[in-house]
């Protein structure tokens, strides 16, 4: 395949999939938050972490897409194009997984906090560890781009 086309697919994957993951995460956690907010609005300032961490997934995708874009001009060989494509795939898969984790743990965290606010500090671990998954993917994608 044409190297420039391959790398463009990488760019598309790296921005598209994280944005979809972020959107799904925000949709799921945001609606749950709205529900809790009607009963206990004072918890919202703490629970906002779920939505913002979901949003961060899109930012990681944006970063990788941005870096790939800046390298597009020097991608001429199939090898470098593959690296660009795979870095897109890596960030796509890792943000999708992180999104799934944040959505599930986030909604449970929101529900549990509404019932027992003191459990927040333990339950938030699930959400932030899920989000850390995206960071691992980001690091690897970042290093792959560094080799281009």
């Amino acid at each position, binding site marked *: 395949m044409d190297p420039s086309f391959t790398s463009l697919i990488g760019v598309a994957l790296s921005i598209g999939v994280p944005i979809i993951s972020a959107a799904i995460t925000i949709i799921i956690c945001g609606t749950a938050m709205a529900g809790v907010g009607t009963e206990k609005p004072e918890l919202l300032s703490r629970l906002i*972490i779920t939505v*913002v*961490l979901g949003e*961060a997934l899109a930012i990681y995708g*944006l*970063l990788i897409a941005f870096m790939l874009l800046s390298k597009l001009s020097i991608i001429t060989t199939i090898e470098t194009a593959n690296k660009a494509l795979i870095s897109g795939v890596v960030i796509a898969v890792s943000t999708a997984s992180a999104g799934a984790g944040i959505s599930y743990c986030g909604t449970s965290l929101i529900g549990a906090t509404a019932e027992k606010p003191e459990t927040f500090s333990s339950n938030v671990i699930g959400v932030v560890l899920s989000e850390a998954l995206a*960071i*691992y993917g980001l*690091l690897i994608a970042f290093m792959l781009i560094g080799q281009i």
Partner: protein
Amino acid sequence: MAEMRKLKVIVFEDYVDAIVRSLGEAGITQLIDMREKVDEWKGVLLPYTVSAETLTKCSDITTKIGESLKTLGLKPEDLPLTEAPSTTGSTKELLAQVEQKLADLPVDTLRKCSEISARISQLIDPLQLKPDEVAVEELPPEKPVEEALAQLEQKIREIPIETAVRLSEVTARIDQLVDALHVKPEEVTIEKVVLDKPIGEALTEIEQNLTQIEKQVATVGLTDRALLVDKIGDLSLDEKSELGKMLSELRHFVLETRRMFGARLLGLRNFVADRRIALGKELLTLGRVVETVRQATEAETKVGEVREDLLTLQKVVEREKQVTQAEEKLARTSKTVYFEAWVPEAYTNEATERVKKASNGNCLVSDEPPTHEEKAPVILKPVPQYLSAFEKLVYAFGYPSAGDINPVPILALTFPILFGLMFADVGQGALFVLIGVVLTFLKRRIRTEKMGDVVRYLLVSSEMFMFLGVSAIFFGFIFGEFFGPSGILHPISLGRVGPFYIGGFEPTQEPMKMLKLAVFVGTIHIGLGLVLRFLNETRRKHYKLVPVPLCWMWLLFGGLFMWAYWGGISNISRWFAEGVFMLAGLVVLPLVLIIGVTSLAEGFMEGLGFGVEVFAETLSHTMSYSRLMALGLVHSAMNYLFLVLGGVEHGHFPLESIPMIAVGTILVMIIEGLVVFVHTLRLHWVEWFSKFHTGEGIAFKPFKFT
């Protein structure tokens, strides 16, 4: 940090209310909820049931007092705060006394007075009387208040509200006609109108009269002719000519009719005016009577005192309600009541004395330190007001346990640093400082409790904005960013630690240096957390576990050293070849020590589990700090985007780029600001607090009347 004691009290049921009230006045004890503990006593204790009747009565009386205050036109917040008098006796007795006092207050009379006054002014307004038109007559002889009021009400009810309005309407109509006909009062002999009827009927007749006149005036076209005639009057006409004769006849006719109507109209007007003044006089007299009644009542009962009495009563009832609610936490035997409460050691004697005094010595009080299984509430030294936003961030995660270091002041230092690394920008940092200054200024001017949620959050965190802004400015200089990598500033290097460059590069140009810096900062941050863990373990006197944080630091910094020494993770094969001894000394040995020490303290399996946890956490938490790089790069990249769109090149800001940069700055500051803030918070809550701050403490919230 004050030590806590647990107060245990047994007392006869009759004295419970007085004791709880006395403790509530002092505000030094936190009642322990006995309902959760009743099971432990295996049937000896039962939950103390509070009568729902008392609570309902409290609400009833509060509502009643509120209504009375409203009737008297008083707002509780306008009145001086009075201390509720200290009371004795049971809640039931107190409430009965309050009800009695309330019944004695002449609230009803005063309410009636204001009702009548309102009605009078409603009637008097449409009459549009001038003060000199009506002189108030003498007042009728005084009667007993109730009788006078009843009479007044009767009289007032007899006057329908339309009368006043109709009177003014009729006056207006007459005036209109008089104007239209050009009636001159000196030309006519005013007719005397006598209508010996009730005012309502008289008005109806007058209205019919007026309608007739209006009709006639319209059919003869009198108004037009009148104008014409007035004009003719100005001409000197020859009587002999034909036209002259006709005209003078016409003039004669018009003047005659006008005189006739004028006489009638003016007569009516006088009649209506008389009636209007009569009604006004009557109403004003009634008003005076009401005023006298009110003054008499007020003088008799001293309304000033009534008001204060009402407030005091309200306070008393409010307090009794809180007492009753607090009593839900108590437990009982068949005759006595038992409860436990936390009290700071310094106040133990005072609390004991209060219990004894309130129960006249009919009680058993003892105090003891908390047992190991129990979690006593914690009192922390208050932090300075400008750190209150950081305090909220820490306590939202959890309250420090007893004896632990309060992380608020340290967090106030590290939080801005991590934020600034990600949000490095001189321009936007300065804007943050500016926002902080403005918010701090506003906070002193406006009452925060009246503001909406978002505004209140902003006001509370006004000082935090300044902290974050200063840090962002600092790192903006380090990385050479002014509204993005605009080229105006050049990165300033603070030095170099091994392969870690502290500043002196542009993150977007050299992301690997930024990544290394992020990991370096993360390691130091985690190391600081471990130092605090060491201090906490020492303060808790867990001497067996004190070596753990030390070994952990050894592992952490050893790992970092290896990473740096062997040139990153890509050369990991060399760690196990040439570097195997270093690996053993810097990574394996501390890990084994951690497992060993924890095993000795808590058992082998726990030790092994903890060892694995330490290894995994060290890796994953350090890596998690690479988000400092990621978000920092995204921040510059987003700013760069708007710089390109605005057409900024090599530090040259053309004038037309300013709107685009302004839009970009607003977007970046809101979206990026929020994301970076939450990530900074997350790094503190998860990666940092997990090292030393369990957040399992309970705040000491003494039972106190509000």
